[in-house]
Structures are given as structure tokens and as C-alpha cells.
């Protein structure tokens, strides 16, 4: 990272009205989902598989992953591309936000009363001026087994 050491860049996105952030170092790209294939028998968090420039990507429905209820917003389905164990995944979110450069020192630990489902995948909270940003851990998002245990 070319940034000064105590600054971290995050790609932000909203899911169910909440702002989340992923370290930019783990994000490959951001793309619009056009056609997706359902995977029968798969865990509910798996939205399906899709073809992104010749690569098969497994899409994770972040609403389901974060146990957020409510309808999907209209418009394009957006996803954040990440790599995990040399496999490609897409995290489907409601909307992509801007990239924020934040001081590492500004991060607080998860509050005790955080929803256990969120606490399992959140690495802390960044306080922005007008709202809170939940920092997510990419590896833990993809650890569905762990989720089942925690739930």
C-alpha cells in the first residue's frame, strides 16, 4: 500500500441500509450482475454462479449472509469481486459506495451487543461523521460453516 501506514482504504457498500467496508487490498473489482445461474441444494446464502469474462464466479447474497430482511432495491444488481483460496467470489450488495481512506486508529472493536451473525464476520466499526461503517473480514464472510455454528 502506498498510503501512509496507519491509513487503510476501504471499498464501501450498503446492504439493507447499513454501510459496510472491505479492505481494498482484497477487492478485485466491482461489477454488475447480468445473468446468474441458481445452484439447487446450495446453502441459502449462495445466490448462484455467473460468468464474468470467462471466469465462473460464485455469488454470495450479502442480504442473506447478514440476515438482513426487506426487499431488494430496484435497478442493477451490483457485486464486489473477491478472491479466496484462489477461487473467485462475488458479494452481491444493494449498492456500491465510494472508496474511503480511513485511519486505522479510528477503528473500534465490535460492540458487545452486536448481532452475533454480524459479530462473526465484522472486524470492527469505523466511526464516520454521519454514520457508522462496519468493517468486514473477507475470509469470515465465506466461512459459511462457522455461521451455522454461530446461529
Amino acid at each position, binding site marked *: 500500500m502506498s498510503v501512509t501506514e496507519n491509513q487503510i482504504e476501504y471499498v464501501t457498500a450498503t446492504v439493507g441500509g447499513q454501510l459496510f467496508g472491505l479492505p481494498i487490498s482484497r477487492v478485485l473489482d466491482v461489477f454488475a450482475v447480468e445473468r446468474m*445461474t441458481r*445452484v439447487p441444494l446450495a446453502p441459502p446464502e449462495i445466490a448462484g454462479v455467473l460468468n464474468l469474462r470467462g471466469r*465462473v464466479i460464485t455469488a454470495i447474497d450479502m442480504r442473506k449472509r447478514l440476515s438482513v430482511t426487506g426487499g431488494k432495491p430496484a435497478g442493477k444488481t451490483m457485486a464486489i469481486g473477491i478472491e479466496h483460496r484462489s477461487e473467485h467470489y462475488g458479494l452481491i450488495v444493494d449498492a456500491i459506495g465510494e472508496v474511503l481512506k480511513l485511519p486505522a486508529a479510528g477503528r473500534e472493536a465490535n460492540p458487545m451487543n452486536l448481532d452475533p451473525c454480524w459479530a462473526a464476520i465484522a472486524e470492527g466499526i469505523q466511526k464516520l461523521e454521519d454514520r457508522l461503517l462496519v468493517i468486514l473480514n473477507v475470509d469470515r464472510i465465506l466461512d459459511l460453516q462457522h455461521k451455522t455454528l454461530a446461529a
Partner: protein
Amino acid sequence: MNDLLQDFLTETHESLDVVDVELVRFEKEPNNEKILGNIFRLVHTIKGTCGFLGLPRLEALTHAAETVMGKFRDGMPVTSVAVTLILETIDRVKEILAELERSENEPEGTDDDLIKRLEKTSMRDAKPAVAAPPMPEVQGITTGTLVEQTLERPLRPGEVSLDDLERAFRETKTEAPARVSAPPHAANTLVSQTLERPLQPGEVSLDELERAFPETPASEKKSAPAQVRRSGGDRREDERREEERRESEQTSVKNQTLRVQVDTLERLMTMVSELVLTRNQLLEVTRNSENSDLKGPFQRLSNITGELQDGVMKTRMQPIGNAWAKLPRVVRDLSSELGKKINLVMSGEETELDRQLLELIKDPLTHMVRNSADHGIEEAVDRHKAGKPEVGTIRLAAYHEGGHIIVEISDDGRGLDSSRIRAKAIRQGLISETDKLSESQLQKFIFAPGFSTAAKVTSVSGRGVGMDVVKTNIDQIGGTIDLKSVAGKGTTFKIKIPLTLAIVNALIVESDSERFAIPQIAVVELVHIDMDSEHKIERLKDSAVLRLRDKLLPLVDLRSLLELRPLETEAAELFVVVMQVGSRIFGVVVDQVFHTEEIVVKPMSHMLRGIEQFSGKTILGDGSVIIILDPNGIASSIGSMAENAATLDHKIDAHEGEGSLRKISLLVFRAGTDEIKAVPLSLITRLEEIDASKIEFSNGKHMVQYRGGLMPLLPVREGFTVRKEGSQPLLVFIEKERSMGIMVDEIVDIVEDRLEIEIAGKVPGVLGSAIIAGRATEILDVGHYLPLAFEDWLHRADASTSAGTRRILFVDDSVFFRNMLTPVLNSAGYEVKAASGGAEAISILERDADFDFVVSDIEMPGMTGFELADKLRANPRTSHLFLIALSSLNSPARVERGKQAGFNHFIAKFDRGGLISLLKQTETRFAEAA
């Protein structure tokens, strides 16, 4: 890292692996000079390169090892201690190499310990070896005087003392006179000497050697061994020529291969996959395009893509034997460490596997073989007590099956101890005291994390990390692992590895608006079902079945299998994809069938790998991603439904037990006379009605064109009038590629009844008569007709009898089945001996145990098939036999019981095709093992 060093490391690693294997072989055949020559050359090359690269530690070590091997060459007895020592040396070399790879420097430390021991070993026999064949001229020719020479520092490890060198040098001269042009002089004068052949790599010219003498001791190291090697005199000359020839052959082979970075191949593979996908997209375009100019070039592009793809795939394939190369050494070391006698038998080494997969299964395989040696095989004493041969056997086999590669690891050891597994599972809280689990369910616990039942923790295994790690590794490559174990008999692990990167032909189907790919390899046929078609789906409670050629085909709807939305209304049109997995045939109901397409199999992402019904995913020509169904997974998920029905089976079983005879399906027909005739339905491949006008008569035989070939038709008996018009019903029998039709007048019915035959046996073609559905019925002898249809039917069998025909002992209490199956097996090329019961079978085997298979009925009066199997397995003379159980009632519980008794396989009593294909399969494996 510098290229030179890199090359050296790669090459040396390869050489050392070969040395490992060769040494173990050499220990067994100490007189095989070829092997020794091979090892010697490899070590010698390594040593030479080390010197060149300036790696003193390695050089000294390999030098000492080479010296010992040189002594072997000169006739020093090959002891297991010496071989172990060299193996140890090689391990040390590997350690040094590992460090070298990491830091580009030899690690600190010394190998004096090993070198001393190596030197001691070679010294022990030094005298007779060096002086080996004392040539008479020696005395006369050596004119120089030996001067006591001293070196002003202690010898470095691996160095040879000046005295030794002198002696070696002097003795070399024994062969010199024949070749050296200049007259031999005293050793202290330098003369130009010539050798009448080119120098071999690593050898030093006589001149250099000569010069080396008065010069620094540093260069001696190199010269000495080269010279010592020659000390054997002329006796070695032929051998050396032989070696030169071999070496030059090797060089030419080397020149035909090229080292390529794996990354390069990987990239190539990815690009080819993309090319295939692009080709598929183009195919989609040209399909819809009217432009015929496109078609020709596209066809070419398509073919070339195909060939390119095959070619690139091949570059990635490696024989699985590469992953096994270390195992003989591992087993050898373990047997000496554990004090057991173990024989490792490998077959199917040439089975090719993607190199990536190969890397990934290497460790699990090694671990499992270690496990078998440590836990599986008993100590010789215990084996003796159990009536087994003292030498335990671990078998490793690889072969292809249904688009997968199967690797089997089996041992004839003590098997798993279910009671101990149970106790441990309870202790770990995995199950409760009251849980009732089947043997095989219990055995599966060994795959649970931290589950080791080894009573004592040895250095080899039993450390609690074990089978769970193996299972995880195999899961990771999308494979499965299964085990069968019989207490006291041994354990077999079966690993199934998918060809993940393979490009396969697949049938594209649709259900609930989702498309899926089914690998073509598993698809037998397609059946179209609509309102008017003759095929109808019928229901037995909740199970759907289809009558297909008078057999009931179990059906599963893809919608319910994959938990898709069920159909709201009865569909007007459906398709059944008939699939075969192993010997199981079933139909999968889908909404729609499209075309077949070549697809690039991409493995399921990690998260989706647990779904057994899927084997991967792919991108279609139109760019969409679809899921590939796994035939094996589907078969087993249907199987689990069957398991639920097992309890029901039991009741029938008990009920059936009352009468000793079982009901079988019989086809009842009329032919020639008024009497009713019958034949077991299972023996008939098909029932057909053909247009009588199509029957041709030639060469005294009736024929009909059938499925693209001529099929001979036979009357049931002489005097039968062949119809001239109308339709002619036929019973069609198909054996391998041959088919035969028996002409009958009328097919009456299919009945299920017990078959109790009284042998009349005088009329040809009739086995006897039986009461079927209350009427006396003649039972047709199918075996009678086969040779009539094909004169060579029996010749064929005879011809193969001479060339190592497999022999089968067939045990059945029913005369009918003995008479029925014997000719069928004969015609498949086996020599069959029939026995009427367990007792007779045992007495036959007592006289002559030279059979390959025992095929036995289960329910027999006197001794049951289970009891027979127990007896055969207990007797060392017959314990090697491949036992196949025939039973009309194959509930999982019975199959389990059979396995416990020692049956290798269970086949439905009337599954003739299944039996023969099983025999063939096993036979192939025998042949490979031999």
C-alpha cells in the same frame, strides 16, 4: 537463484527419487548389475555436479556412498545394513538439498558420522574388492617403487589417503599395457598416456591422474574413485562397454524431452480452455447463420481446437506411478522399523492423472500406506496364528471407472476393530451408548477429526492426525473416499478422484427452467414420454418406475432430486435420461433435452463442494454458467432412498426363507408344439417382433438385419415352421457383440413362480420340465442354442482356454442354474466347474485350488454361501480366491453380511451382464497385478 543451481536441484531431486526405488529393488536382487549400474551412475553424476558447483558437504557424502556402491560392484556382499546406510545418506543429501533450495547455501554442520560409517562399511571389504581379480602380469609390469608418502594435514571426510590412491593407481596399470601406447614407466615419471576410448563424464584422463599425484591433494578426490572403478581389470571391460552404450542411449532419449515450467503449461491449459469456450460460442453463431462460407473454415477451426486441447491435456498427464515412486522405500523402511514382513504390490501405475491432482494425492496415499503397514498388517507371529501367510500384503491399484480414477489401497491385515471405534466414538461424544450403528457407519468414524484408535502411539502413525487429514485433502480435489473392512481379513480404501480438468461430452437437459449438464459417459439412452407414447410412468406408492423393454426402471425426477419446484400440472411431455453407474441403471426425469456439447469441467467452488449431486460447473456456448450433475452422486442419493426400504426387504427375506426355492420371473411362450415353454426372463436381452418378410435364408440359416448387423435366427426345434408373412416374435439374446434370435410362435405371459425342475434332458434344447403357474412347462436350455447360432461360439472359448483362461468354480444347489449359467460363462471365455453345494465346492478345491473365481449362491441347503465363504477365507490355500455372491435378495443388510463372510462382490442372481462385466473387470485387474 542461479539457473545452474536451479537445474542441479531439479535434476538431483529426480535422480534421488530414482535411487530410492532402485536401491530397494537392488536389495531384493543384489545380483542385478543393471540396477546397481543405474544407481551408481546417478550418484556419480550427482557427485560430479557437486564438485563442479562447489558444494563440499554434498560432494563428500555422495563420494562416500559411491565408494560403498563401488564395492558392491566389485562383489562385496549386499547387506541390508549397508543399504539402510546408503538410504540414510540419501536422506541426508535430501536435507542438505532442501536447505540449499531455501538459502542457496549448504547448511552448516558435518556429516562425519555418516561418512565414517560408510567408510567403515567399504573398508570392511576393501581388500578383496580392490585386489579383486589379481592379474598375473601385475607383478611384472609395475616397475615403480612405492614410496611412503605423507600428507601434511589430516584427511578430509571423503578423501582417500595417498596410499590408497597409489595402490589404486598402480593396479590400474594392469589394464594399461593393452591400451597404452607408451611403455609403462615408474609412477613417479610423468608420461603422456592415451586411453583408447573417449572419457566418460566424471572420469579423469590418465594424464590428469598422473599429474594429480604430485600435485595438491585437493584434486585427488575426484580422480581416486574413477580409478578405483577401473581396478577390476578386463573382466569389467564388457560391462563398461555395455554401460557406455546405455549411456549413449540415455543421452539420445534425453534429447527428445524438454523441461518446461509448469506455469507455462498451466497458462497454456487455461488458454486452450478459453479457446474451447470461444469455439463453442462460435458454434452457436454458425448454427443460426445462413452463411455457408463460414461452415468450412469453422469446421477446421473446430477440429484443430479439439486436437490442440487433447495435446495440451496430454502434457499435463502423468502416470500415477510417479506419486507411488516413494512407496516401496517407505514400506521397506517401515517393515524393518516395525519388524514386520510386508510386500507391496502395485498395479495400474500407468494410469494417467492430471499432474495437479497427482501432487495433491501423493501425501494422502503415503499416509494411508503407512497406516496399512503400521495398523493393518499384524506381526508375523500373529499372522501365523491367524492362519495367514507371514508376509503381509499391501495392494495399491489404480484404474479408470465411469469418468473417475479409482485408487484402491488394501491390506490383508487385521481389519478395523469396530468395538474399539465404537468405544472411542462414545468417549468423544460422537454417539451415545444406545445408538445402533451398522458396521460400516462405525468404520466411517475413522475419518472424524482427532480420531485414532491405535492402542499404542508409534513413531509411524497413531498420532491422532490421520485419516481426517487424508479425507480433507481428498475432499479438496473433489474426490471421495470409502472404506470396507472385515475384522481379521483386512481393510480396503477406495479413493475416487474426478478428472476435474477434463473436457467432457455432456448432454444438456432442463428442469424447472434451469439447465444442467449430464456427462455423456453415464447416459445409456433417452426415452421420450408423451400422451401417445407406449412408455408410461407408473407409480408404486411414491416411487416412479418406467416399463422399459419389460423391465422396471426406477425413476427419479430431477425436480425432486434437486429440490426444485414440482410440476404444477401433469406434463404433456417428459424425457427420461437412462443412466448407468456401475451395474446400476436408473432413469432421471427431466422436462427437456437439448443437444450434447463439449464442456470444460470447472470444479465447484469450495463452498459448494459438499453437494454430492454435482461434479462441477461449466460455461456454455451462449455464455451462461450451468451445473454439471454427478452420475455417481445421483446414483448414491437414489441408493439412500433404497436403504430406507431395506427394512421392508428384511421381512420378505424372512418370509422367503420358509421355502428353499425363490421365485423368479419367467417368460412363458409357445413354439412348435402346443406345450408351453418358459425361459428365465433375465436371460433374455430383448423381446422383438419383426416383419416375417424381412427374414432371409442363406447358407442353411435364417437371418435378419438387426441393429446394423445380421442376426442369426434359430427355430426352437427342427420342424418349426418359419413364418412367411405377418410378424415373427423373437427372443433376442445378446452376448458381447453377438446377438441371436430364437423364433417362437407366441409370447404368452410373464409369470413369477418358483422353479423346480425335473430333469428329463433327452430333448435337445430342453433342460427339463417344471410346474409353472399350475401347468407343466418345458424349460428352454439357452446354452444349447448359442453354438448353433455361431459355430465358433465354443471354439472361441476353447481357443482361449489354452492361453491362461480364468477358471470359475460355480456353486449352486439348483441344477437349473448350474446348467443355465455354465454355458453362458463358457461362452464368455471361462472354464467353469460346477458344484452342487458348499461341501462339494470345498472338496473340489481341496483337490485343485487352481481357480480364479468362486461364484456362489447364498441360500443353499446344508452349507449356506456365507458359511462357504467363511471356510474358504479361513483356509490359506483358498483365501486368495475372488468370491462373488449370487443372490436374488440383495438388501444392504445381506450385502453387509456377505462382505463380512469375505465375499468380494454381490451380484443379483439374474444379472448375467453384471456378473460377466464384473468377472472381466476383476480379470483385468488380476492381469495388471500379475
